[in-house]
């Protein structure tokens, strides 16, 4: 089979064996959930409940009037214990609603209704009300993506089933266990944006999912499954679009520029659930794995569940973990402890030991150029770093700082162990601050 791909990228060890074949299981409900009112890219929500209120699972507890935003819902039935700032997974203090869960949780959202009669407008509304965001990790409000600019018609919807981050297998499991819901979700998306073509892109290390989905879409006009080369970051939006359609999204533009909409596997399934069951985003599948997790699993976890509770569901920690990561090992967030809670965008929780994590000290750049070859955006990572070290932010941008989507491929290959992504983030912050000053003056 001919595998499609993009230029650049890296081949890290994938280490998915521990969980790839394990069916998803439901985690127990923790005694208390901590739900940050902001879990998405965009405007923050305001809590719509008070301390002491009774809340039902699926009840909206935070919302915003802003366009780029997504409401949050209670993931459990229980009582609001506190509304206060708690550090979220990035460590930033975030207004959070703490809910004490009832001992027994109702079994809701069992009744399926037919979704074929929904109009595009209604489907958009469903996505918005369900608080749906990109579940691949980016957490951009889905409703906004489903509302492309009028002058940019969408002809193709791509479902991102690459899961190119090492260790993670939750999307793989979803494709294996819920192919019909996935295809139903894709059809809803195609209907919303009026696309004739639907493509499910899957990396070739998941041949079972490719075969299963291919057989499922055989009777579906306009929908196909495309096998992609196993390479990181195959699942990055722009890389995936190029691999699948040959179209290149211009720098700092959105996929709608080339008439494409990309959504993650989990997002498509969640959209279908929201439409058919009326279920908002209150839980998600995530992969709990790494050499320091006793029993690695693909778990269905309630939003707001603390990391410690998730890890207990997997037999706890073993060995000597040096890093706990929320997300994948390439782009995830390191945790200082196990208190942060699972949010809508959490794709995994990893416990890594010293042998897995890079512990080497940063050395001087020796100009080996491997970061240039690895960079899927064709940037010059080493010179971004060099410029950023000197505080020359404009120059950092000349070498591509603002076009970087922080995949980390450069740092992965770097023989000097330079944390390029940290320098890029700093450059972006400085450039944003500088343009704000300019705009305000």
């Amino acid at each position, binding site marked *: 089979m001919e595998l499609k791909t993009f230029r650049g990228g890296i081949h890290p060890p994938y280490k998915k064996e521990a969980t790839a074949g394990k069916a998803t299981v439901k985690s127990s409900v923790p005694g208390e959930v901590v739900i940050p009112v902001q879990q998405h890219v965009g405007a923050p929500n305001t809590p719509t409940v008070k301390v002491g209120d009774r809340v039902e699972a699926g009840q909206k507890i935070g919302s915003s009037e802003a366009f780029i935003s997504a409401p949050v819902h209670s993931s459990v039935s229980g009582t609001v214990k506190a509304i206060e700032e708690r550090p979220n997974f990035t460590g930033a203090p975030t207004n959070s609603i703490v809910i004490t869960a009832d001992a027994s949780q109702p079994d809701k959202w069992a009744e399926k209704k037919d979704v074929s009669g929904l109009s595009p407008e209604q489907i958009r509304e469903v996505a918005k009300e369900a608080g749906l965001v990109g579940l691949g990790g980016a957490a951009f409000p889905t409703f906004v993506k489903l509302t492309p600019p009028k002058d940019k018609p969408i002809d193709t919807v791509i479902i991102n089933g690459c899961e190119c981050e090492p260790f993670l297998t939750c999307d793989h499991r979803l494709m294996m266990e819920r192919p019909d819901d996935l295809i139903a979700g894709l059809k809803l998306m195609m209907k919303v944006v009026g696309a004739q073509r639907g493509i499910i892109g899957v990396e070739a290390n998941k041949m079972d999912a490719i075969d299963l989905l291919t057989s499922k879409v055989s009777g579906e006009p306009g929908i196909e499954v495309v096998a992609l080369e196993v390479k990181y970051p195959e699942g990055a939006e722009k890389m995936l679009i190029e691999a699948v359609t040959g179209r*290149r999204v211009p*720098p700092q533009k959105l996929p709608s520029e080339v008439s494409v909409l990309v959504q993650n596997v989990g997002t498509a399934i969640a959209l279908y659930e929201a439409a058919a069951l009326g279920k908002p985003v209150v839980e998600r599948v995530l992969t709990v794995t790494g050499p320091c997790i006793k029993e690695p699993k693909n778990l269905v976890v309630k939003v707001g569940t603390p990391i410690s509770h998730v890890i207990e569901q997997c037999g706890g920690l073993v060995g000597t973990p040096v890093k706990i990561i929320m997300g994948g090992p390439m*782009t995830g967030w390191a945790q200082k402890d196990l208190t942060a809670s699972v949010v809508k965008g959490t794709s995994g929780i990893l416990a*890594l030991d010293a042998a897995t994590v890079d512990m080497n000290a940063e050395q001087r750049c020796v100009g*080996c150029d491997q970061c240039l070859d690895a960079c899927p955006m064709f940037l010059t990572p080493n010179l971004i770093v060099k410029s950023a070290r000197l505080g020359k932010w404009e120059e950092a941008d000349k*070498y591509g700082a603002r076009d970087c989507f922080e995949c980390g491929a450069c740092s992965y290959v770097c023989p*000097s162990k330079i944390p390029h*992504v940290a320098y890029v983030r700093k450059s972006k912050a400085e450039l944003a601050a500088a343009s704000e000053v300019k705009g305000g003056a």
Partner: protein
Amino acid sequence: MSANEYLLTAPPHIKREDRISTAMRDVAIALIPVIVMALVFFRLYALVNLVACVIAAVASEWVMRKIMGREPNIGDFSAIVTGLFVALLMPPAVPFWYAMIGTIIAVALVKELMGGLGYNIFNPALFGFVSMLIISRLWALENVTLNLGSLDGVTSATPLTFIKEGVLNGLRPGYWGLFLAHAGGAMAEVSLIAVLIGAAYLMYRGHITWHIPVSIIGTAFILSAILGQNPLYFVMAGGLAFGSFFMATDWVTSPDNRLAQIIYGVIIGILIVVIRVYAAPTGAVAYSILIGNALTPLLNKVVVRKRFGAVKTVPVTESE
């Protein structure tokens, strides 16, 4: 459980195992065929100079880092590699202490004094070698005749002097001699095939790409032909191949993106031909690469790669 503290460093959290030392070790491995040929031809002369230069390199790095308050860095192999290079760039008949001075200049001045590996503008080994080439000329005015020549140069009958004099018959080594093995010139210039084997290994390991060597050699081939030279002999003789594959590709002192590397290679190729044909054949490759080194920061600034999506915009097709 939640009282534990874990590492909070930025992503990515996993990295490839390769380090600077891995690459330097690979360069040393790539030099093995060249070193073996030198030892076969020059025996003790080659051995003494190689050992002397490596000792001088490691010792001067250690001393300089000590003085400048830096951690010792012998584990990264870069001093050892520099020492090997300086020795190989010189002819075997050069006294060992002379080669050692060149090595000390390379490591102590050109590398450590500039801030250490990664901060140097010039290729340390080439700079050390060229320094000694110039010093030897001044020296020669005084008294002794030191046969110092090499990366392209040599004082006695070598292929390059034939090129300069336009003589292509007689005593010169033939193509097979150049390709397989011949004495004359620097230790690195004994055998073209040895150089190519080492270069192939570096390419296989991903440390160098074709861009710089091919553009240097290609440019030299074409331009020398235009100027009425025998182009094949021109690129096979002297240190052109060794310089192109091992010296001009030096990570630190060559430009970063592929287009800039090609421009860099073409400039060096032109300089080599001009210097060899119109000036002195001795040291032409070394001078040319050093001038290229000096242009590297400029090339990195001016030649910026085209970003993803900026290359071409695909016309938006209406939905069928």
